[in-house]
Each structure stands twice: as C-alpha cells, then as structure tokens.
C-alpha cells in the first residue's frame, strides 16, 4: 500500500534537487509539500482541471496524475520559474493587462499550458489557443481574456525573438 520511500533526483526550474518520497506521492504533492513550490495548485486530483499543469522535459503534464518517482531524471518547470527575476514573463504581463486571472487558482496551470503552446507554435491562431486551453478549467474569467492575453503575449515574444 504505502511502499518504502525512495530517493529521486530531478531538476526543478533549472535547480538540481534530490528528495525522498513514498512511491504513492504525486509529483504535485512532492512539488508543493516537499519542495515548498506551492504555486502549482491542485483542483481535482483526477486529471481534469489542469490547475496542476507543469512542464516535464518541456511537455505539459498533469502533476496530480504523475507519481513523483516517475519524474526521476527529468527537468521540471513550474510557474515559479517563469518570471525573469524581478520582471514578469511577457505572458504574465499580458495576463495582467488583459485581466486574464481573477482568483488566480487556475492561473499557474494555465500559464504553463500556454508556455508549452507558445514554444511549439509562436504565432498561434485563436482556435489553437482555445484548443490548448481546453484542458484547463477556469471558473472565474470566462476564458476570453486568457485567449486575448495568449495572443498578445505571442506578439510580444515574437518581437523579442526577432533579430
């Protein structure tokens, strides 16, 4: 049932970490409870709401559905790693401009989902943004401002990337 705790290593937001967890502990719980990274939220623990979304080796995953031990040797990115020091990431800035967050509970998961999208598709269509977002539930915003923020951030990021 519980199993003996195991030591695992991974990088989290670029930092090497080692922790000892029971095999039944989810990556979400390990991030929140063992590493103190409480920016990743848990809204359902059954893989539907997307609040717990983090990037594992660049791919958006639901950290409530992944055991921490499965993340052994991977590179994990969470919302805490997004800002550029004291400046917000352009996506975060766009969220503020467009009022794309209200209670902010879904926001970290939404941001990480969009980070994955914008890396893969720097100029997404509105339909592509809505597709990417369809696995993230938000009860507050009605999504429209999130979509607008994502499209706006894409423009800003593209301008940054331009030579």
């Amino acid at each position: 049932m519980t199993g003996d705790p195991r030591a695992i290593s991974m990088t989290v937001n670029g930092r090497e970490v080692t922790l000892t967890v029971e095999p039944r502990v989810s990556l979400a719980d390990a991030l929140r409870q063992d590493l103190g990274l409480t920016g990743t939220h848990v809204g359902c623990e059954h893989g539907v709401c997307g609040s717990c979304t983090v990037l594992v080796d660049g791919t958006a995953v639901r950290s409530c559905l992944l055991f921490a031990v499965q993340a052994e040797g991977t590179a994990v990115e969470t919302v805490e790693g997004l800002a550029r020091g004291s400046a917000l990431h352009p996506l975060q800035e766009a969220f503020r401009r467009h009022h794309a967050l209200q209670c902010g509970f879904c926001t970290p998961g939404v941001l990480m989902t969009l980070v994955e999208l914008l890396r893969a598709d720097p100029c997404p269509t509105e339909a592509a943004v809505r597709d990417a977002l369809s696995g993230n539930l938000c009860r507050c915003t009605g999504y429209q401002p999130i979509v607008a923020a994502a499209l706006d951030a894409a423009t800003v990021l593209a301008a940054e990337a331009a030579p």
Partner: protein
Amino acid sequence: MTATVMTATLGTRVPRIEDPALLRGAGRFVDDLRLPGTLHAAFVRSPYAHARVLGIDTADARALPGVAAVLTAADLTPLLTDLRLPIAFPEGQLPPEVMPFALVRDEALHVGEPVVIVVASSRRVAEDAAERVVVEYEPLPAVTDPRAALDAGAERACSTADGNLFKRFRVAFGEVDAAFAGAHAVVAERFRLHRGGGSPMETRGVVARHCSESGELTVWSSTQMPHELRHTLAERLSLPEDRVRVVTPDVGGGFGTKYLVYPEEVAVAAAARALDATVKWIEDRQEHFVSAIQERDQHWSVEMALDGDGRLLAVRGTLVHDQGAYAPHSVNVPFNSATSLPGPYALPAYDMDVAVVRTNLVPVIPVRGAGYPQGCFVMERLMDRAAERLGLDRAEIRRRNLIRPDQMPYPTPMRTRAGAPIAYDSGDYPACQAMGLEAIGYDGFGARQAAARAAGRHIGLGIAHAVKGTGRGPFESGLVRVMPDGRVSVYTGALAMGQGLKTALAQIAADTLGVPVERVDVIAGDTGFVSLGHGGYASRQTVTAGSSVLMAARAVREKALAVASGLLEAAAADLVIRDGMVEVDGVPGMAVPLARIAGMLRGLPGYAFPDGVSAGLEAVEHARFDQLAYANAFHACEVEVDVETGGVRILRYVAVTDCGRRINPLIVDGQVTGGIVHGIGNALLEEFRHDEQGQPLTTTFADYLLPTAHDAPPIELLYRESPSPLNPLGVKGAGEVGVIPVTAAVVSAVEDALAPFGARFAEAPLSPVRILETLLQTGLRTGPRNGEGGTP
C-alpha cells in the same frame, strides 16, 4: 468637503494589485500554509443518503501509527456548547433542526455527510486510518424527488421531522383571479430547472491552530464569511470572541459555495483545541461533490395572463424547490426565485405558492445568482410563449412591458427578506434592450436565419433581461489608516475571492487620499483587524465596503488637512493632496507628507498633540444599507444547433450591463464575462445527477461538466451607467447580474433554431441528449413545420 478630490483612477482600467503575486505562483491559498507541527484531518463520510448510525468502532484506526485522534459525534459533544450548528438567520423563520451537526449524531441525511474526523501526522495517514473506521449503518429510505416528497404517506427525509416540508410561503400581490378571468390570452408552462454548483477551482479548506499558552484559536479558512465563522467558533467552543481570529488567505473562488459555516470547520477547530495543536483539512474534489453546498432542482408550474396588446395582467403558479437535507440559509434561494420573477417588467398581479422541500441530497444555499436565474428563466420563457401566442415579436412584447425610466425609482409591491420594499432605484431597461438588439443585428436576423435554413443550418436567436438586487446590508466595515511610512492600509470585513475587490477598494482610498494605488494595501477578511463584517455574497462588496472605505478615507483626509492647515499656516480649503503630499495649491514647496502627519497623530508620550483632531491618522466607517441597488442586464445570443448530434454552438453573445458607475471597467468586464460563461454551463452542461437511492452519479469533473475554452463564445460587452442614488459612489454590484439571463437567452435561442421541428424547451440544462430526445419526440416524427410553432 474641502479641497478637490483627485479622481485619478476611478472609472479607469487600473491593472489589479492582486495580480503580480498570483502570476508568480506566490499566492497564499489555505493549502499553501505550512505551519510547523501541522496535523492533517480526513473525514469518514456517510455512504448512504439516509441511514441510522448504529455504532462506530474506531479502535483499528486509532492503532495506526501517526494517528493523533479519531473523533465521533459523541467525542465532540462535550467539546461544544451544542453539536448542532447555529442558525444564521432571524429566529422564527425555521427551527434550529434545519441545521446540520458538526458530525452526524445518529442519522445521516445525505451521502457525504461527515461522521468521523481522523487527525494524523499526514493526510495520507489520516486517510489510511479513516478507511479503518467501522461504522455500522441501518439504511433508511431516501427521499430524492421533492415533488413526490410532498405526497401524503411519502417516506420522511429526516425521521424526527414532521414531514418533508421545510416551509411553504406565498409571494402575492394584486387581483390575480380577476386578471385571469378577464384575460385576452393565457399561456401556461411547466418548468424543470437545475442550477448546479459554484464549483470554485479551489475546494474548501481550513487550518485551525490552538495555543493553550495564549488561549488563542487562529483559523485560516477558504471562506466567504470570516466574521460569522469566528462568531460561530467562539460560541460553540466557549471561547471569548477576541481569543478567536479567523484569517482568509487568498481564496480560489467562492461563487456562494463558501458562504457558509460548514460542519467540517467546526469539527477541525474542535479537534485543534482538543489536541492543542494545528490541524489542517483540505477538501478533495470528490468530497466537494458530496459535501459542499449546491443548487439543484426547481419545478415550476406557471401561467401568465395578458391583454390583447400583449400587456401583462398577472402571473400565478407553484414552485417546488429541492432544498436538500438542511436549510442553512433558510429559504433564501426559493424566496429570491419567486420575488425575482417579475424582473424588469411591470406586473400588476402575482401569486406564487412556494414549497421548500427536504430531500436526502446535499443542502442548498445560493450559488452565484442566488435563485434569480430560475425566476428570470420562467418569466422570459413565458414572454416568448406569449409573443408566439399573440403573434407579436419577442422584443416588442418585452418592450411593451418593461418598466420605463420615467417610472424610476420603481416600487414593486414586494418586500425583501429584510422586510424593506423591493424598489428598483435606477436604470433604463428599454434603452438596454435597444442597445443589445442593435448590437446583435436583431432586425436582420430573420433574413440570416432563412438563409441559414436554406443551407441546412439551424441558427436561432434568444434574448433575455435580468434585474439583480445588489449591495445587501446591513453594513460592511471599512477602516482606512495612513501608516507612519506613508503607505495606506485598508481593512474590511468584505472578502476578496478573485473579484478584484482589493484593487477597487485601493482605488477608492487612493483617489480620496491623493496617493498612488500602488501605495495602498488592502487586508480583507481578517477578523484581527476589524471587529465586524459580513463577507462576500449578493454582489454587495463594492457597494457596501466601497462606500465605507470612501467615507473613512474622506474622514482621514479631513483630519490630514486639518493638521496640515496648522503646519502650513494655510486654510484647509487651499490644500490639495498629491502623491502623498499635502500641498498649498499653487505654491510649490509648501507641502507636508501624509507620513509626517500620520507620525504626529501617533503622538509622543507626554508631549503636545495637534489641536482639534483625534488620535491616529485613521477612521473606520460602517456605511449602512437598508435598500438594495438594482443592477440590470439585457443579453442576446445567436446559436447554431447540430440536429444530428444535439450539439449547441454559441456563435455570438452580446451583453448589455448596467451596474451603475464602474470603479474599474476592467474588473467589471471580468465579472460579467465570468458570469456569462457560468451561465452557459447552467444552460448547456452542468447537472448534479443521482440515482433513486440518493447516490450521487456526478463526483468528478469528467461527469459534472464545467464550460471549457471551447464552450465559451466570443462575448461582446456593452454598458450603460445609471448611477445608484443609494450610495455615495453610485455603484451597483456586478458579480451576479451577468449570470442571470444566460440560461433564458440560450434556451430561447435553441428553441428558435429548432422552431421548424416544433421543439419546445422548458428546462435547463439542455444537454445534447435532451435536445435529441426532444427532436425525436416532436420534430423528426412530425417533420419540419417551416418555422410554424405549436401551442404550448
């Protein structure tokens, strides 16, 4: 007032002060609190909708290493003045027995009701131990249909109650029978309306820390009502109120769900006190589906009488409301449903008979909209039926019946639950309708629809109005204090749960005191700072807390000017406050910082103190509100229905909102948009289902569907601003008016799209299955009727 008030930010789209921390993942929600030595709680919950508890064996659970306590109702009883939660409404409305116990004493009344609390070193251990608790139950018959529950000889939902009726009441005025007797036309319909839950993305959660050294109990709870929680805990745990502090951390949405003192909060606090420890309980989503409040079914049977011009004569009918196992907010939801039905229309006579029925399902209290969406749906659908019957245009029949702006303020013959007259304070309903019709292209829709139909597509248009009473009193607290460093702190008993309340209050304080918004800190929902408060519900906070903060900030300003006038040797009338400096207007350099005045008003022990002012550069106000400010909205939407799949796509959505003066249009947009998408969930998706034994069938977000980014349409927002004369800001609440007309508008549009099939809808939500069933019953069997409708 002296000197000019700088209105730098009121009415502008100020980015929220809440955002930076939340965007960085640095918010502090209740589950983010990590206090040393915290123990974790899990609950054993009733697996039956109705059962007698015959015995509980906790020995195995207690034997598990890491378990600190396993408490039953019998264990809690000596720790509490009363195991039952207290009523939070005036005595006499309903008896105390309508409230739940902190833990089930001898009879569980719904699946999910907490029976045992287990406290252990970790949540995982607590859950392991909870599985080892053996509860012996005697299952009893479950009552799940509120209509059948009223039959003579029906099983009882609670064996100690007389019957299944919590309360029966009427909302009535005018000469109803005479109106029907003389009517030109009568339309009648039965409605079944399911509302659904608040479903905040953050579940409930509470951390309680008891410290016997100080005798203090500190509770962090994801609640919408911190002061009521403190009062209840102090009373039930026999603690002085000032030894109990309730703090609301960041709250991940409420929507009504958290506007209740829950049994779990009392049980966790009692356990923390018994153990003299810190105990945390975070609800998981499965628990949320079976123990957090919901709104569910209402069954209406209603008829409307009209004259030959389509003018309303009367409405009468019955409403049977499924209240669930308990009635912790009395009859608020069905009362609102019944009194909101007339909405924006001049209705001469009305008689609604309301039965509030006990069932063995999760208790009902208001969810965003609080019963109004149902009253609105019934009225708006009847308007559509009446238009059809009389051969009138749907917009025209509404226009003829809308209350006119020259009739404002418009007293209805009804009274609020506080006993005050329901009187609409301001608004121009016909103008809102005209704006919305224009924006959606109402006049050209017939041609668009005909063209679509010719191409085999089924599009339809729906419209609906809403009126919502906002700013419920009696008051809210607002304390404004200039700190010695010149920052301004605002404290209130109102509650921030995502609406941007902190930003709005900061704007009000900042503009009044002449400081930048960034220099204002808002602490909402911490009983340690303000002694009184009512929290977040009924779209009330910008009205009530906003007014208190405005008044307090004005008082602080007066004080600052009085002191500065002495220091600068200038008349207060010649002073302005800019960027935190009190200046003699037009004389650069003649200035004193607010910070210095704040420092002076702290006083120095034994030394002189400025004349004519009281201590501290601060003031507290509790603006009083006896009357509601009525916001209104007109919505129009265009949908397309796929007759093969029953799928509904909303093509366009236009919302005209009048919530008075907007402090921050960015925030108002957010409130309205979020409300509309919530309403789309109610119209098309969200339904709590259960079987005949009361076993819930929707306990995950895979079964209970919330709107996703795909379901949310493009929304066009338009505004009128009719300032409320009832408060100094001229504001009305914006949090709920967006959700109210959505179900009515969407269902109307679906029906319009399927008019060729003669489809009729008098229910919500409309799932694809329900649409297909209806098409099979009416449309496909008889074939399209070329837009001609049947009579209801």
